[in-house]
């Protein structure tokens, strides 16, 4: 397959098509709009449906309808729009429906900004809407990885009958890198979904529902959902460890922040500082065993985010507070610079004694 230079948002759209997705319901919002623009052209070419809804609330409910009807379906938005979709996402998780939700994060809170951000981390990994449910959250850090994770997202959504979120940010959406696409999956050849609502022909009616007025039944339903999340934690964690084997200080970051951290690790190494990077790719389920392994010999951990500190809490939690975890973040759409991260590293290393 030939490589092609492509913008992140558009690559996500093409990757969804290659994954057999034929339905998109969305609403305009910067910095993800190139994705709907791309699919508005592309989906009709492959016999799919692109529909711009009257609001994000309507869009996520169209996804609920299409997913319950058995289709591979997606939506995309950015921070404020994703907040509007929270009730719908809770329904989708409660009714055990597969779909893919893209959030190209931007500065917040409120209207915030249109520059990149990572301040929706809590919302993404802790469920976001009402009730005990989780989204499987994938965090790409390159355009190729966005393409690969989109295919994975649809596969995992169907495997677990659960919504999957691709958590990016404005930088990843707007930048261009060469990418390679997988072969096209034929939606007709995807596994059948006997539970879907397609007309009760020769069977009892299927019901797409998240209402359980009997509390015992709803508790059992919750236990069933939790079992999925336990299985996800056992089978689906993904991460990248970069120069962590002998690292005195391990940086932790996802998405665009991880790219900055990688450059900072390289520079620190040149200055004789044994730095490394741990990059979670699945934010839920959090790669706990992997981060513990990566930080086994670290004297300090530095979490770098485009937020006021959210991932850092889960890093401390998953490292069980066995190593001091520091935080460096920019917010409002500001992007951390490599120089600033390197100076933070040297500052921490001096405090903790020079690394040999």
């Amino acid at each position, binding site marked *: 397959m030939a490589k092609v230079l492509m913008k992140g948002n558009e690559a996500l759209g093409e990757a969804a098509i290659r994954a057999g997705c034929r339905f998109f319901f969305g609403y305009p919002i910067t910095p993800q709009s190139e994705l709907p623009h791309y699919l508005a052209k592309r989906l009709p070419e492959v016999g799919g449906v692109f529909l711009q809804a*009257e609001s994000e609330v309507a*869009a996520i409910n169209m996804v609920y309808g299409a997913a*319950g009807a058995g289709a591979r379906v997606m939506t995309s938005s950015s921070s404020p729009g994703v907040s509007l979709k929270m009730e719908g996402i809770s329904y989708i998780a409660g009714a055990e429906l597969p779909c893919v939700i893209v959030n190209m994060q931007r500065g917040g809170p409120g209207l915030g900004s249109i520059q990149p951000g990572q301040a929706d981390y809590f919302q993404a990994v802790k469920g976001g809407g009402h009730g005990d449910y989780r989204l499987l959250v994938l965090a790409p850090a390159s355009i190729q990885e966005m393409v690969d994770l989109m295919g994975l997202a649809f596969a995992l959504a169907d495997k677990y009958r659960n919504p999957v979120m691709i958590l990016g940010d404005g930088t990843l959406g707007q930048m261009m890198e060469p990418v390679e696409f997988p072969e096209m999956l034929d939606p007709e050849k995807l596994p059948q979904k006997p539970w879907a609502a397609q007309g009760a022909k020769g069977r009892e009616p299927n019901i797409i529902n998240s209402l359980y007025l009997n509390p015992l039944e709803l508790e059992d339903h919750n236990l069933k959902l939790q079992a999925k999340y336990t299985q996800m934690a056992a089978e689906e964690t993904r991460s990248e460890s970069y120069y962590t084997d002998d690292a005195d200080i391990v940086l932790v970051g996802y998405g665009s922040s991880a790219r900055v951290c990688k450059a900072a690790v390289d520079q620190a190494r040149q200055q004789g500082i044994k730095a490394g990077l741990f990059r979670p790719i699945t934010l839920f389920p959090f790669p706990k065993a992997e981060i513990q392994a990566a930080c086994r010999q670290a004297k300090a951990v530095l979490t770098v985010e485009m937020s006021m500190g959210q991932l850092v809490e889960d890093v401390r939690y998953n490292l069980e507070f066995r190593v001091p975890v520091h935080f460096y973040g920019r917010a409002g759409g500001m992007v951390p610079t490599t120089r600033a991260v390197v100076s933070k590293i040297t500052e921490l290393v001096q405090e903790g004694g020079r690394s040999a």
Partner: protein
Amino acid sequence: MITVFEKPKSLTPAKTHYCPGCTHGIIHRLVAEVIDELGVREETIGIAPVGCSVLAYNYFNVDMYEAAHGRAPAVATGIKRVHPDKVVFTYQGDGDLAAIGTAEIIHAAARGEKITTIFVNNAIYGMTGGQMAPTTLIGQTATTAPNGRDPEVQGYPIRMSEILATMPGAAYIARVSVHNPQEVAKAKKAIKTAFQVQLERKGFAMVEVLSSCPTNWGLTPLKALEWLKDNMIPYYPLGVQKAPEEVKA
């Protein structure tokens, strides 16, 4: 002996949770009779959002969705776009369609979604305990309008059929009632037309059915139907607001 009236196949045997004399039960049966008569039970997918009829998935013997309050037309849009050859209907109350779901119903009609909406207007929120609805009449009391609806404070009741009839995408809009056997027959005819308009892919179809709420109106089932006739029909006139040419006859 030949049977002239029996339970339609498109209703399950389940007893409903509706209050005694609540005309939701009649409307459910009319929809089911129409689905039977059109022979589309195995092709039909229904959506019932939050409201008294949220449990409709227990009563319609077809594939059913329970949807978020106000969002059934959006859910139906998603389904119809995936299965353009299936029959898709929403069954919504007045709080659902005319309050929280106003945008969804207007845009479904604006897009000319080829779905059928059954809009049950009983001028009150039933399930949650008698609150004022967008269709609550002036002077009508409700738990959130204890001294009766006052236009100065709560504005005026909304006539959704007339509003939607202005939409080019709307192919058939009618308002009917079920307060006596003759009106029930007319209501069924309108509901059947609304489903046929969908089968003929003419566009969006909606039947607004004036319905009673004995419990929250504080009336006996029979008195409630009389109240409906004397108070709701003057404000919500019955009739066809919009229809494709050949159906107009």
